């Protein structure tokens, strides 16, 4: 059993190394701030039903759709929604676990700052990669 423990540790470290290599190629940390861009195309995959349900009762708002790494479980995302709801300019928040996206509906008057959003997500233990903004 000690051998299994040792093998498990070795494999975890190998898997994590492989993930790191993959990420360094696929995510360079840059973000796309383009506004009013089509958000359900292949270039920005999201769960369309989840998003449609999210915007159903919303109007006259702007929505930040943030792509996040490390949001693999419901528990992981709980802190994120609680953090954003502390912001008075935030009307609604939802999480799409399937594609790793957060939807944040802001008042239209709010100047959305990706660095601010990124910092909030980092403080929660996840990593924000990109953001797109759309207006309703």
């Amino acid at each position, binding site marked *: *059993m000690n051998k299994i*423990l040792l*093998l498990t540790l070795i494999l975890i470290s190998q898997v994590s190394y492989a*993930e790191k290599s993959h990420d360094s190629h696929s995510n360079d940390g840059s973000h796309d701030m383009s506004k009013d861009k089509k958000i359900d195309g292949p270039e920005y995959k999201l769960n369309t039903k989840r998003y449609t349900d999210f915007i159903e009762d919303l109007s006259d708002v702007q929505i930040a759709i943030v792509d996040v790494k490390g949001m693999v*479980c*419901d*528990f992981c995302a709980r802190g994120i929604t609680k953090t954003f709801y502390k912001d008075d300019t935030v009307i609604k928040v939802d999480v799409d*676990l*399937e594609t790793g996206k957060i939807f944040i509906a802001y008042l239209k008057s709010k100047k959305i700052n990706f660095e601010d959003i990124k910092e909030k997500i980092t403080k929660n233990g996840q990593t924000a990669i990109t953001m797109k903004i759309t207006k309703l």
Partner: protein
Amino acid sequence: MGIKKLRNILVLLSLVFIISANVNARPISWPGGNTYMYKSDAIKTSKNYHYSPSYKYSVGVEFVNDKYFKEEYMNFRGTYLLDRKNTKKSQRNFYITGALSSNSSNNFFYGAHGDWETRRLFTSISYINKYTKLKNYTEKELQFGVAPYLGEYGDIHTWIMMKAKRNTMDNNWETYPFIKLFTGDYMLEIGNKNSHWDLHFMARF
């Protein structure tokens, strides 16, 4: 394909399965988050509260009723996230943890815990050295599990898990299945080992 090659592939697939996942009895909450935990098994019952000033560490207190040594005491506990790796489909964590007991300066523990999870799979490993007035021992634990379905945010999430535990007092590995359910800020874990129920409840607020 030779028998040896087939055996090697099966061993590799088994290990990949063991390694490939992640569930959620996380020892640290979100920044400013509070956690209450109740655990009960054949050896002890404990009630644990901890506070997380940041996602990196938590501090708390645990009230323990030790059925094996027949004593009650408090543990002042701390857990620190040494390393985390986030990817789009997984998260890996390494924690160190430790506690000092209220009943004796010779009663304490320290150890490490690692986990790796995706939405579908979970695995974790922990190694704890325990020092008590009567005996010192080591606890090792492996867990792996699979989510039979992928729930959305806010759904009830279910994990079918296997746990393998060994402590150096009896030197036997015990392996048993359990089920883990969580929704919102609550988690419930139930297992049965040698006719004893293992119960673990957690609430975050």
